[in-house]
């Protein structure tokens, strides 16, 4: 602190930049922040393509918000007009079909990216100290995503919109004492109706931007600790890192374009394959569809819900399944992060992923016979994995000595 500047803190206001950049930076430290966090930010050299799915999910979110704004220009949130206004978008609005199909399919791909992203966190131990908060913010976003997607699916006001909303909101009535009051507040009426679609539209927008806010926290916490990598070992020197730009940006760009080629294929040639044909029938409270199924990305959780024979128990298990995942950083007792060096836990995590897909399949089947039994086994494994296997395997397993980033890359090259 020099005598000419007794208020030492002012030093921080002196921008290293000149010109317009300097003018902005000395008033709003955006330029230095972007440089530190997105240009020079050190990232382990050893990241594989699993690490691209966070960025891909972010692009999906941006795409959803942009298409959502344009849909909002033409959509009318009321029980009488909603379905017709969506058809107007599909038929009469310029490129309306493109915007709507993009919005509908981007959600599915947002979930695909997020599921892979969460699997990455589990497999390579990204949830473990010191990244617990990154993980918790991520799971919170995942729950908001599910809420937003559910609210959004109600808006086209087709048969599945209506009956899906009826079934899912009814879960709240399972809460003792205050359940019915919460349900009425949520629906704005005693059944799903005009008031419901109106407030779901508002909440759909609100939660979408709440997710954006959480992305900021997710990224801030990530940039405090830095990225994990396949070895789970922290970089020991600058030599084991690359700068975010251009190394990670170009790599993520590759992965993103590849991902969007698959999206484009579905979007342009099979735009309705991930949806349900009943949603092209206008909502009718007098006719119940043969099988009420939620969107595919809810199916694992729907399977858990139906696996428990008690309504309240089912609701608790469904919400609990995600909340319990949030305890994993503290329940996993292993000192080693990455499954590459954990011979037993590795198979537990892989089985968890397979179990997730099995539950997804079961969620789409009618709740009867063998499907319920398999759903129960799957649900049992879900909680066993978190509450028993995580502490126990971490304690009993003898992990291999994790390789350093350099040694890992050398061994891969050899």
């Amino acid at each position, binding site marked *: 602190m020099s005598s000419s500047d007794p208020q030492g803190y002012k030093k921080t206001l002196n921008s290293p930049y000149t010109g317009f950049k300097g003018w902005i930076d000395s008033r709003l430290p955006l330029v230095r922040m972007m440089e530190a966090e997105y240009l020079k930010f050190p990232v382990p050299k050893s990241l594989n393509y699993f690490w691209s799915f966070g960025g891909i999910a972010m692009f999906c979110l941006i795409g959803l918000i942009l298409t959502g704004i344009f849909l909002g220009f033409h959509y009318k949130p009321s029980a009488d007009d909603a379905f017709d206004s969506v058809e107007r978008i599909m*038929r009469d609005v310029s490129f309306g079909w493109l915007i709507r199909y993009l919005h509908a399919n981007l959600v599915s791909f947002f979930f695909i990216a997020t599921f892979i992203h969460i699997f990455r966190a589990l497999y390579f131990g990204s949830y473990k100290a010191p990244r617990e908060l990154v993980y918790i913010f991520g799971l919170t976003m995942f729950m908001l995503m599910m809420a937003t997607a559910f609210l959004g699916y109600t808006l086209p006001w087709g048969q599945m919109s209506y009956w899906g909303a009826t079934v899912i909101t009814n879960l709240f009535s399972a809460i003792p004492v205050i359940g019915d009051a919460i349900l009425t507040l949520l629906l704005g009426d005693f059944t799903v109706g005009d008031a419901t679609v109106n407030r779901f539209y508002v909440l759909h927008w609100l939660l979408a931007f709440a997710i954006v806010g959480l992305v900021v926290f997710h990224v801030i916490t990530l940039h405090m600790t830095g990225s994990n990598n396949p070895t789970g070992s922290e970089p020991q020197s600058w030599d084991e890192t690359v700068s975010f730009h251009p*190394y990670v940006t*170009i790599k993520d760009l590759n992965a993103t*374009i590849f991902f969007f080629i698959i999206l*484009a294929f579905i*979007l342009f040639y099979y735009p*309705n394959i991930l949806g349900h044909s009943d949603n092209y029938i206008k909502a009718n409270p007098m006719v119940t569809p043969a099988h009420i*199924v939620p969107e595919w990305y809810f199916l694992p959780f729907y399977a858990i819900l139906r696996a428990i024979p008690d309504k309240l128990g089912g609701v608790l298990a469904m919400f609990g399944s995600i909340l319990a995942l949030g305890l994993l950083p503290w329940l996993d007792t292993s000192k080693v992060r990455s499954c590459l060096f954990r011979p037993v836990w590795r198979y537990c995590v892989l089985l968890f992923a397979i179990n997730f*897909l099995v539950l997804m399949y079961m969620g*789409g089947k009618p709740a009867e016979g063998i499907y319920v039994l398999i759903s129960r086994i799957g649900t049992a494994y879900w909680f066993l994995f978190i509450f028993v296997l995580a502490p126990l395997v971490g304690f009993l397993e003898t992990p291999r000595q994790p390789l350093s980033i350099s040694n890992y890359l050398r061994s891969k090259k050899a």
Partner: protein
Amino acid sequence: MKKLFFILFFLSSFNVFSAGSKIDIPKYDWSWKGFFGTYDRASAQRGLKVYREVCAGCHSMNYLSYRNLSDLGFSEDHIKVIAAENLILDGPNDEGEMFERDGLPSDKFANPYANDKAARAANNGAYPPDLSLIVKARPKGADYVKSLLLGYVDPPKDMTIPNGQHYNKYMAGNLIAMASPLSDGLVDYDDGTQNSMDQMTTDVTTFLAWAAEPSLEDRKRMGFKVILFLVVLFILAYISKQQIWRDVKY
């Protein structure tokens, strides 16, 4: 392992909705299938005739306007004539009266009934669904619609058919309120095409498929361009990535 994960993921999501359908719907070869598929215009035009002469007696198509028929190759004058053949309820006029007038190209397809209740009253309590989206609103789409129209066969001997119901081997539950709407030679085609049952069901299904998804041709054309663009972009990005990462020493 990554690939396996992807494959499992997609497989698991594709078969999700097939639950419960035990009736086998035959597959047909449609003109709009495939990457460059387009609606067979002549077939769809004949299909419109079938719709207007047969289906329109009971089924509305509320999301279609007469002007949309230009997609199927009808001329502006022809569309005016088609529209004018329908009476549209308009008003109220300056005297506060509702009045009927000839249809205009900007009108929606005329509804055969004044309201849903009138539709039910005229059909033994069964509601003839709007056909604008029928091809997208049924699990097997066009294959289902054509099959249903062809599915009126003699019921099994031990089955009693309730009054006002008909046996159809492709309908869920095998009972349908609609009697077989088509029969060989029912609609006269202007272009000399053989008006067999098979031909009429193909034509009307083609028309209904277009009605449900009029943007299909634009979509497929754009899709090809977008994917081509993305593939080129991917190649460039991949070359850039190799170039940039080349100096990263292990």
